[in-house]
């Protein structure tokens, strides 16, 4: 396939587990070199979709192409060209990151150097510590390193920061950005708005096995320019404002309130939640 073909094409994808339809007709395309996010709540069908693309699961219907291959065939050429970070994938406890990366590198025709990958994942200091002694965050870095060591064209990151504290999340984001800077195409799933906003060039918002919207995060209003300012008025009624400039709006509101000798009870400034985005998207439909 040529380099201008999309990295991933998904058309009318469905997946049934008995009576339950986990994926109900999903379409999207991932371009080469882009970071594409599947954004949705737990149970939206994100992981099912990604695991079909990774070759772990068969599909019930629809067309799928990953780097020009049908992943259901599980061809070795495709597996050499992709790197997978599972939502929860374990690793041998009695070997060190340097050893397991060296072992993994041997699976691939053009691996990256082990030292380079250790540096990229920030694991130099833990390179010779047995994996069972690593912290959760360090194990996650090892996940990235193992997915990267084969020098894949395309990487799948399934909920790469779920369960992380804020510092670990930001560190993980840095790693994803450095993967993008290496020219990798990345498909990531997340249920965090801010993560999609920070990392993805485009997102597909998924709910109940369907795509509600696709586009760059800002255009979808996904945690983007809109802030929500809310307070209770004198009668206890909820007042809400949407604004792109919360500083100015707050100044106006508080100034008016003070001059009237009133208080803005339960004043809050927030970004729209994923739920707000869904409500808006489903209300438009």
């Amino acid at each position: 396939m040529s380099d201008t073909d999309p990295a991933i094409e998904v058309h009318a994808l469905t997946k049934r587990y008995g009576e339950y339809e986990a994926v109900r007709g999903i379409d999207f395309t991932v371009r080469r070199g882009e970071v594409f996010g599947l954004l949705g709540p737990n149970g939206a069908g994100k992981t099912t979709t990604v695991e079909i693309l990774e070759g772990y699961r068969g599909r019930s219907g629809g067309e799928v192409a990953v780097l020009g291959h049908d992943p259901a065939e599980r061809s070795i050429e495709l597996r050499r060209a992709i790197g997978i970070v599972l939502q929860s994938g374990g690793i041998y406890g009695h070997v060190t990151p340097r050893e397991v990366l060296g072992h993994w590198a041997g699976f691939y025709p053009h691996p990256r150097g082990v030292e380079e990958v250790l540096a990229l994942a920030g694991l130099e200091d833990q390179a010779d510590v047995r994996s069972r002694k690593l912290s959760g965050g360090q194990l996650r870095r090892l996940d990235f390193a193992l997915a990267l060591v084969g020098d894949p064209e395309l990487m799948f990151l399934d909920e790469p920061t779920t369960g992380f504290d804020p510092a670990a999340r930001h560190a993980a984001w840095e790693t994803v950005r450095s993967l993008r800077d290496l020219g990798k195409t990345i498909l990531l799933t997340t249920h965090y708005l801010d993560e999609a906003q920070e990392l993805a060039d485009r997102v597909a918002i998924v709910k109940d096995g369907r795509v509600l919207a696709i586009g760059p995060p800002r255009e979808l209003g996904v945690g983007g320019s809109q802030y929500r300012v809310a307070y209770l008025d004198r009668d206890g009624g909820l007042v809400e404002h949407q604004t792109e400039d919360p500083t100015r709006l707050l100044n106006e509101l508080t100034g008016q309130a003070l001059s009237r000798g009133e208080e803005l009870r339960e004043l809050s400034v927030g970004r729209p939640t994923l739920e707000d985005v869904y409500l808006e998207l489903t209300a438009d439909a």
Partner: protein
Amino acid sequence: MPDRPVALARGARAGDAPADAGRPPHALALTWRQYRLERRMFWRNPSAAFFNFVLPLLFLVAGGAILHGDQHQLDKLVPAIAGMSVMSTTFTALAYNIVFLRERGVLKRIRGTPLPTSSYFGGVAANAVTNTALQIAIVVIAGRVFFGIGWPAHWAALVVFVVVGVVCFAALGVAFAHVIPNFESTAAYVNAVFLPVVLVSFYVFDSTTAPAFLRTIAGALPLLPLIEGLSGAIVTGASLSSNLDALAVIGLWGVFGLYFAVRGFSWEQSR
């Protein structure tokens, strides 16, 4: 994650890439690599080493102490322990290993790489075979040095029975892993099979007065035929041809085990 951004040019590589970089790795070379990793992990995990080596040796030492001087009984003890060793290094060890790796998600991760399934299982099985060979060597040497038994009377028969026994019990261990729901229950499941099979086989092998129905049961299970074959090879010098029916029973269990090992294998924990 790096504390600082790490700038690396695409394609830049450290000097530790394999010398044959560029060519797809050969499946046999990958089997060898997997085998070496399995060996390394085996020796680093004290509990695995204990179950594989120390436990059967304790049986041997304890049995030898109890039966001290009774050559007839010692002649029975050594092949019985050798047979049990085959079962513990393959059936027990593989069931534990696979359930553990499945539950931890290691198998699923491996499934997502280009490592061929045959190379993975080749390496894992070769690791179990190595343990069996070491164990059999220890038992045979202990028999020669401490228990007044000569060197095996029939080396070829010893090799044939060990090989067929290893294939049979390894396949049954992999197949049995599919039945075990989670790692916490592995010991219960494995012992529920291992202990009764060992006890009934040992009893029937040793006793001349065992009830006929017990003889039938033990003879239909793979361990007693293996012990009888090993006894012929190590102690009595019975030829292979006189133990063909024993070999057939082990072989049938092996076919049964292989079928379910391949057909029922699951790479990930069902949720």
